[in-house]
């Protein structure tokens, strides 16, 4: 996915104070980190703040990166995941007071999940329908437990292999696979239940 030597060179230049190298790193990884944060946190604003925090932490701890211990993307994803866990813990109390059916995304109008399902009898434009389906899946993803959610995000959305995921999550590979299977099945059950309510 990444050329290890090129990334190692970039990191060395950053540590040496080359701001252009740092800018290149930010340009390369900001999209990936933002998507992980967005899918995990569910909110665009939170994702932007979290992405910014990830890069700040990365900038401060860049000297601690050891290429021999793993890929740079795994290191970046680990930082991201740790911040997401911290964020989840901080906002846990807030989420407990929320309605279970309330929207958690600011990319969609504040509607319950069941109300965001498109009308099956009169399908609108294909693009709009695809967007609505994506939002529905995104909402359902936010209802998974954080352990299952992070596993399926890293596997199915970020295409990381099981070993990298195990490194990031600091759990055995078998556990990663089990979480991925349970996460996928739980997501399918949630969506099936939601669509059945509409049908």
């Amino acid at each position, binding site marked *: 996915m990444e050329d290890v030597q090129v990334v190692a060179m970039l990191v060395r230049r950053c540590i040496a104070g080359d*701001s*252009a190298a*740092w*800018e290149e790193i*930010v*340009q390369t990884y*900001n*999209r990936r980190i*933002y*998507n992980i944060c*967005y*899918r995990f946190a569910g909110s*665009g604003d939170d*994702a*932007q703040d979290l*992405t*910014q925090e990830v*890069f*700040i932490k990365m*900038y401060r701890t860049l000297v601690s990166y050891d290429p021999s211990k793993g890929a740079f993307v795994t290191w970046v994803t680990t930082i991201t995941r740790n911040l997401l866990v911290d964020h989840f813990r901080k906002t846990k109390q807030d989420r407990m007071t929320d309605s279970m059916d309330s929207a958690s995304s600011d*990319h969609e109008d504040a509607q319950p999940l069941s109300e965001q399902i498109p009308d099956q009898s009169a399908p609108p434009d294909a693009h709009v329908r695809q967007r609505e*389906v*994506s939002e529905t*899946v*995104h909402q*359902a*993803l936010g209802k998974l437990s954080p352990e299952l959610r992070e596993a*399926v995000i890293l596997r*199915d*959305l970020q295409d990381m292999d*099981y070993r990298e995921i195990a490194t990031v999550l600091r759990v055995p590979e*078998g556990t990663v*696979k*089990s979480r*991925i*299977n349970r*996460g*996928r*099945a*739980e*997501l*399918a*059950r949630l*969506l*099936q239940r939601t669509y059945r309510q509409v049908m």
Partner: protein
Amino acid sequence: MPDLTRNGMQCNEFDSLLTDAIDGVLSGAALDRFRAHARACNNCGPLLAEAEAGRTWLKGLTEVEPPASMVANILASTTGVDTQRLWTQARIQPRISWWEHVQASFLEPFWATVRQPRFAMSFGMAFFAISVTLTMLGVKPADIRAIDLRPAAIRHTYYNTQARVIRYFDNVRPVLELNAALRSIKRTPPAEPGPAKQKERKNDTTQQPEQKQDRNYSQAGNQLILASAPAGPTVIDRSNPDRSNLDPSSPDLPVVSVTTYRRFV
């Protein structure tokens, strides 16, 4: 998940192979045993279907685009040096001259208004009216020189123009007076009796009802009405003396011949 054995495979083994099967890396005898277990087990079969459906849903999600300002914010919060260049690139606008600024602020809105058809027509009509007026006054733009724009020259031109207008009306005054005289002669109407009689009738002081007077209008013009007749007028029909109601035994009664000039319109 209950640890059941079906078709030589336990459910926990099925669970561990589930990701490989969905990823398509499971093959051969292991895949056959896996499929056989999925068909036979009431728990693992649905789990396989749900896991495949969930993976399909997740693969349908597309990447979201981060906000455009995020990179600049990140660089501003980390290095804070090169971000000035990024902010400048994001916010930079082409430098415009003062004339372009004036043109964009004042001239363009003005011309946009002027170019409307109704304003163009109004300006055209105003120009036409001014041209006609100047032509009537004998003012030619070619004759206007800078020297004519002095106050004394303008005053001289004003008096000249005024004198010319007065002379024009003095010249046409006899013609106008002659026309007025002819018109007044033509308007003098001949004497007409009709309206005068109507006026007399309006000034009737006999206090007779209107119907009684009208009753006479039905008589013929050549009928005679006897004065002081006791009951109703005595009518003598000259054209047919036999039909007269005049009593021949009283020849002493005075006979008044009345001729009516009633015009029936």
